[in-house]
């Protein structure tokens, strides 16, 4: 029995590690943005924007920029890139370099300090729950419907984990 448990635990550990094979932080937008030295010293908080879909993420970045200005915070765009099981975790269907340049362009368009963190993983939700230290300030953009959407479900899960989640609602016209 104990041997069985031992094997199971090892498999779980392997599985846990295989959730994420790659993580890289890209300095998207660095500058003083009018901050004084005092501001920079005090700027400890980080706002996490989670990449969902392009329109929702742009809306979330917009909201995060407003908040970051009011809070002297910096923004980090978290991009969990899911690699399907048939593929090796280190060989995503979309080239990492392509995604990097795409997200860097998004980050550089912001008027506050913004960087990008890309993860290759099997399960985006599990990865976010594991990587975000509680309580974090998280901004998720998406459409709000009367039924739960992928974005509202993720927001609810993160709230349950103790994070402060700001849901940046995407207007229907902007999504279309």
């Amino acid at each position: 029995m104990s041997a069985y448990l031992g094997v199971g635990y090892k498999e779980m550990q392997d599985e846990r590690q295989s959730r994420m094979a790659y993580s890289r932080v890209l300095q998207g937008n660095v500058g003083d943005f009018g901050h004084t030295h005092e501001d920079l010293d005090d700027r400890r908080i980080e706002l996490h924007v989670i990449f969902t879909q392009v329109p929702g993420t742009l809306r979330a970045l917009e909201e995060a920029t407003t908040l970051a200005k009011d809070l002297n915070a910096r923004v980090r765009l978290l991009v969990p890139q899911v690699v399907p099981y048939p593929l090796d975790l280190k060989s995503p269907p979309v080239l990492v370099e392509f995604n990097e340049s795409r997200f860097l362009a998004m980050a550089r368009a912001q008027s506050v300090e913004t960087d990008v963190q890309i993860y290759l993983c099997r399960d985006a939700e599990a990865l976010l729950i594991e990587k975000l230290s509680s309580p974090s300030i998280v901004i998720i953009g998406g459409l709000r419907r009367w039924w739960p959407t992928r974005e509202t479900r993720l927001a609810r899960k993160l709230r349950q984990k103790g994070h402060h989640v700001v849901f940046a609602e995407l207007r229907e016209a902007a999504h279309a």
Partner: protein
Amino acid sequence: MSAGRILVVDDDPQIRRVMRMTLTGEGYEVEDARSGEESEDKIRAERFDLILLDVNMPGMGGIEACKNIRANSEIPIIMLTVRNTEEDKVAALDAGADDFVTKPFGTPELLARIRAALRRAPLAPESDPQKLAWGDVEVDFGARTVRVRGTPTRLTPKEFDVLRYLVLRPNRAIPHRELLQAIWGPDYGDEVEYLRVFIKQLRRKLEPAPEKPVYILTEPWVGYRFQPPPSL
């Protein structure tokens, strides 16, 4: 330095916009309110040197708003109206207005009347306390500085405004909507998550134990309340 702080109270957004542009161009600091009710909130929260008040507004009209303001404050009030009858002028002046301008009016005339009203009433001393201290926290509202346990603590302008709004209304549960509209403006009201983030930051910076706040308390499903220690 600004020539004075003016509150423009008018339900017409175009008039508010024009007034803001004109008065800002003349060196005044301008705030606006869409209704008599909103103007009362703003006057409670901030200090103004003069109020431009429209007579005809939905909800609380200008005359009633003027009476309410005059009951608590000596701020010069200039009433704006499209009506030019003797009764209207008498009603406005009896309600406590200092002057009366009929729309449409020329900008030079309005500016002259503002200058005259400000000359007659020298800038009033601030009615709100300049400094306040509780527990380990000292707040200087004039200098917009905060010290916690003797150490300067930096608050962002919005954090300071939220703190100021709460602290000047001790022991009162301030609804989310009221706080959002007072700090972020009339277009806000449903962004409760915003407030949570700012309150969390304030607690982190000011409370002895942020996870168990004793000064900035949450009123579940309502908003937030500033509870000063009993000695204050």
